[in-house]
């Protein structure tokens, strides 16, 4: 066996891989990043780019909040191309029931130190005049924001490279072994102290045992309509959609971009391997958006694309060693929150590698949770 040339080899230069590279490099580790296609070209390019706090579970809340604060700390360093915009999120309530949900959500956030503001119907109309007029209200989370993720991945990698991180682009990895070895498609091997599989929805291709499934999504971007929407808007039914583990689902989610463009989502499909646009799903997704914001129908759409989220059975990412003491680490399975949680993920991984106490509990994200589960069966 050859002597490892690198302390850490990171497979995948999406935003998670880029964040891990920047963090490892800042620790003085010798890092190599191997990317099969291009920097920030996978789910990082396909996603919406929100920096949001989410309350699907306590663990998710803690990781997203921690990560959001890391983005805020980084804000000053971010180049304009990253388009970081703290536009805030409004969770929109369409029914009385959803209004109750907004209240509960607001309480949950406030109790944990996150600023929120409950909006009644009139306040919602003032905040977002283009929304349908008969909505019940909403919950504003002013600290949320959006970024342009491919530029963020590029930026994080350039930070890493300033610490002498090496980057190989255009060579595919076919296996990331438990022993800390990386096998490339061209037949060569790279050995390393530690390998981190950051390959998103492709991560099971390299490490077949891991519980990550592809979850297809569609997005639409419009031409420039400055001021049409001011906040990121999400229907309160969104989490329900994100949870629907078996069936296809759509939810209203619109985002204003720095350019004045609007990004419109979202859809979720399991078992779809075909990257082509599915007209039926696209139509459902857009009609859902029109139901909340009828004026969208008149706007001009420039592009539609699809992407694959890396989904796990419990909606939490896989962060940490593959098994106790393994030299293979995982940083994947971030589903729709990889942009937000990339920074937090990188901090957790580095704490684990360096044997330090992690800044937040890493327990809920350890890959070993699924190993135990399968061991019990």
């Amino acid at each position, binding site marked *: 066996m050859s002597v490892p040339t690198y302390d850490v080899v990171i497979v995948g230069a999406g935003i998670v891989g880029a964040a891990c590279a920047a963090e490892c490099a800042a620790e003085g580790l010798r890092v190599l990043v191997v990317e099969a296609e291009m920097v920030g070209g996978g789910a990082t390019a396909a996603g919406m780019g929100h920096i949001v706090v989410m309350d699907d579970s306590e663990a998710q809340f803690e990781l997203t909040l921690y990560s959001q604060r890391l983005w805020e700390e980084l804000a000053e360093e971010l180049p304009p191309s990253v388009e970081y915009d703290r536009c805030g999120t409004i969770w929109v309530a369409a029914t009385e029931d959803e209004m109750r949900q907004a209240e509960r959500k607001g309480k949950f956030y406030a109790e944990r130190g996150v600023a929120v503001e409950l909006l009644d119907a009139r306040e919602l109309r003032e905040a977002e005049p283009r929304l349908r007029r008969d909505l019940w209200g909403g919950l504003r989370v002013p600290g949320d924001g959006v970024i342009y993720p491919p530029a963020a991945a590029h930026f994080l990698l350039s930070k890493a490279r300033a610490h002498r991180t090496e980057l190989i682009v255009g060579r595919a990895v076919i296996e990331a072994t438990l022993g800390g070895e990386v096998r490339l498609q061209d037949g060569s091997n790279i050995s390393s102290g530690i390998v981190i599989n950051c390959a998103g929805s492709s991560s099971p291709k390299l490490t077949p045992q891991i519980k990550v499934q592809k979850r297809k999504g569609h997005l639409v971007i419009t031409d420039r309509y400055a001021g049409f929407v001011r906040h990121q808007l999400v229907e309160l039914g969104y989490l329900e959609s994100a949870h629907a583990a078996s069936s296809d689902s759509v939810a209203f989610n619109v985002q204003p971009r720095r350019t004045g463009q609007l990004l419109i989502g979202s859809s979720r499909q399991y078992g779809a391997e075909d990257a082509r646009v599915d007209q039926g799903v696209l139509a459902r997704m857009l009609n859902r958006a029109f139901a909340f914001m009828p004026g969208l129908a008149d706007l*001009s759409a420039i592009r539609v694309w699809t992407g694959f989220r890396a989904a796990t059975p419990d909606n939490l990412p896989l962060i940490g060693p593959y098994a106790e003491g393994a030299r293979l680490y995982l940083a994947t399975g971030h589903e729709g929150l990889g942009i937000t949680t990339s920074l937090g993920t990188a901090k957790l991984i580095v704490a684990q590698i360096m044997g330090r106490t992690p800044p937040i509990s890493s327990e809920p994200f350890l890959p070993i949770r699924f190993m135990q589960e399968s061991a019990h069966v």
Partner: protein
Amino acid sequence: MSDEVTLFIDGVPVTVSASSTVCAALLEARAIALRRSVTGEPRGPLCGMGVCFECRVTIDGQPHRRSCQILCREGMDVRTDV
């Protein structure tokens, strides 16, 4: 059917042939630029055939319309972005 139509270019009435495109009418009315680019440069038409999107204007309240692809109609309200 009349051969001529009157449309409004930035509020000013202009009479042109009914077979004229909005883009031609704009240039005839001595518009120099039709829009501002994303960094504020003045721009006029380039391809004349609907490919380049440089001739975009607001027509009857709808922004981003390709003026070279649209024939003038009576009473049309055309706004340039300059």
